[in-house]
């Protein structure tokens, strides 16, 4: 009874902790350099703009964003700052573009007195959201190159005659690092997975599963045949977190077949609900989740596949936000390789730290109440996973 009460408490605490899961803050910019003119096209997701400005009315949001962008998107050259030019009619210096219902678009023209030693500065949003990323594309001298603007890299110097250098793989590696560290569901899942490690061999399986999931996602993205349905994939990752919790519980209670039945049954109930609200894709995803849960909970030795599935889905986190950037398939794969490598390395670091800490505790001969620790962790995973699943399901 005490155990149940503790688990319920953990569920509540876990649900509150779900608020940590933050929405990604991204924007897209295209810089076109032609002679002494620099054209900037800037795209900002509506949700990011509304979060930034706290205004729900599009007209007011656009008006405020125009002033904000003029202050935070600038171009400098050997002849000093390049002013944004008035575009005539009653447009002013920032022309709002029609780029679809989910994005705000703006265009600014800068005229430089001296087009040498151009410097593109993008400081928009980094003060408000330090983790913000701007996926930029620079077109110059007939070449188009993908670049990144981040809080640590807000200025880009353009060479006068040579081609603009491409962003280093390390930049995308850093993105992958940051992505795992700032996504609560990712690192909680990875740390939870460590609880399934019982032998040295299991640790190797875990690491291999993490890496193989990310590698597989790169391969699938490289084919260019499928796109993830966001945020449904995020909801499914919540389901996998909960399933991990259920697997840990099942392992602790090998004779109790309850988790193997109850969790899939609960998911089937959700399938019915999703079917009732006429969301066929969500119903398919949940049905798949129910079948996977039944399979994994009955055949626990396949737990590395669950880990691989999680990291495989996480591998689509970057392609899911790259659509409006209109980058070539090749560029996207290159970016994803860096990103996934970074995510893999940080995941391994987290796993290594957790295993190292456990080995240290064992070496010090500290006795932990293993059963209750496992129960608390499993309950936390189930609570958080269920919360993320329900909050993100559409």
């Amino acid at each position, binding site marked *: 009874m005490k155990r149940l009460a503790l688990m319920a408490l953990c569920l509540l605490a876990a649900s509150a902790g779900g608020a940590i899961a933050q929405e990604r803050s991204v924007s897209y910019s295209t810089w076109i350099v032609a002679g002494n003119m620099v054209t900037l096209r800037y795209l900002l997701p509506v949700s990011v703009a509304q979060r930034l400005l706290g205004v729900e009315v599009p007209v007011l949001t656009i008006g405020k964003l125009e002033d904000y962008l003029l202050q935070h998107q600038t171009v400098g050259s050997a002849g000093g700052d390049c002013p944004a030019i008035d575009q005539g*009619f*009653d*447009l002013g210096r920032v*022309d*709002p*573009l*029609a*780029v679809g219902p989910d994005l705000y*678009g703006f*265009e600014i023209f800068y005229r430089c007195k001296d087009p040498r030693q151009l410097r593109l500065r993008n400081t928009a949003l980094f003060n408000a959201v330090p983790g913000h990323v701007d996926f930029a594309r620079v077109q110059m001298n007939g070449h188009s190159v993908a670049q990144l603007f981040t809080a640590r890299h807000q200025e880009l110097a353009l060479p006068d005659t040579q081609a603009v250098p491409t962003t280093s793989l390390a930049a995308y590696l850093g993105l992958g690092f940051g992505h795992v560290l700032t996504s609560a569901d990712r690192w909680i899942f990875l740390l939870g997975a460590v609880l399934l490690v019982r032998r040295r061999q299991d640790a190797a399986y875990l690491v291999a599963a993490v890496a193989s999931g990310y590698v597989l996602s790169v391969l699938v993205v490289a084919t*260019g*045949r*499928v*796109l*993830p*349905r966001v945020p*449904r*994939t995020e909801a*499914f990752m919540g389901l996998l977190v909960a399933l991990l919790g259920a697997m840990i519980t099942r392992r602790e209670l090998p004779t109790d077949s309850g988790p193997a039945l109850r969790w899939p049954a609960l998911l089937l109930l959700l399938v019915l609900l999703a079917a009732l609200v006429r969301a066929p*894709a*969500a*119903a*398919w*995803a*949940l*049905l*798949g*989740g*129910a*079948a*996977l*849960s*039944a*399979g*994994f909970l*009955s*055949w626990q030795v*396949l737990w590395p*596949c669950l880990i691989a599935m999680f990291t495989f*889905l996480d591998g689509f986190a970057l392609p899911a936000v790259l659509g409006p950037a209109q980058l070539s398939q090749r560029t996207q794969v290159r970016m994803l390789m860096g990103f996934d490598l970074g995510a893999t390395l940080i995941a391994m670091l987290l796993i290594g730290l957790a295993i190292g800490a456990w080995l240290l505790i064992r070496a010090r001969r500290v006795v932990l109440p293993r059963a209750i620790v496992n129960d608390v962790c499993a309950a936390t995973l189930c609570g958080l996973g269920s919360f993320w699943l329900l909050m993100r399901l559409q």
Partner: protein
Amino acid sequence: MSQVSRVRALLSRPQRTRVLPALAIAGGLVAAGLGLFRAAPKPLLAVPPGYVALVNQKGLLFNDFRAQVELETTKRFADATAVERSRVLREMINEELLVQRAVVLDLPETANEVRATMAVGVNGQVAAPVLAYEPTDAELRAFYDKSRQNYSTPGSMTLHDLVLGVGGYENANQTAAQAQIDAAEAVYQLRSGASLDYVMAHFGFMPSGRAAAGEELDFAVKLHLGAQLYAVASTLRDGEVSDPILDTDGVHIIVMERHQFPQVADFSTVRDRVYLDYRSAESNRATSQNLRLLRSQASILLAPGQSE
């Protein structure tokens, strides 16, 4: 081993517990894949049949190209030279690029000319099905009967407008009452057969200068006489003399020499006009019907103090 015994053996195998989980996982992967992923849109790398070019993945129809070539060269498509075709295609691609740019710049929201053109375009599209229908003679005649007044020939008048001045330097002692008595006598004599010259000389009437010497169309008469005198003149028939009419410059008498009243034209003579008016009326009806529908579906909020 028979089929049945094979199934029995499979079911009685101790590993059977592995079969179902494996099936569940495989089925789960497929179902989850269907729900979590969608096919990426494939970019068109070749121009599909029926199109002449793709501009940013947007197709230019071959039929439009053919029509444009024939319009610009005034030749049949087959007779147009390769150079002419290339020139027209280049122009069409340029136009498509500009249109795409206009859409991105949201010109319908910012440029009045574009808004006006779009409004005309929508009205034209709404009216197109109505205009495609050829009305029968019976329908045209019914329309003509409902709006006969629009098909009348204009009337004309030949008249004399005489005035007996009041209060002028040449007739300073003449009062309005005296002038009206004289005018009534003059009218009596004119109606009795006295000549116009005699009456003018005897009573001191002068031509008012408002009426032309010869025949004038109705609208011109109205313009010259003014509303008050025209209202009287329009009721007079050939040879009739009006009652005295007091105006600002004196007392008037109108003598109608010849009055041709407006006449409604026969349907057969104005059929072409009726046809055009019918189409125009139908087109207007379709556009107002469309606007009513759009308004019924729209959410329109007016600022305080504003009305439409």
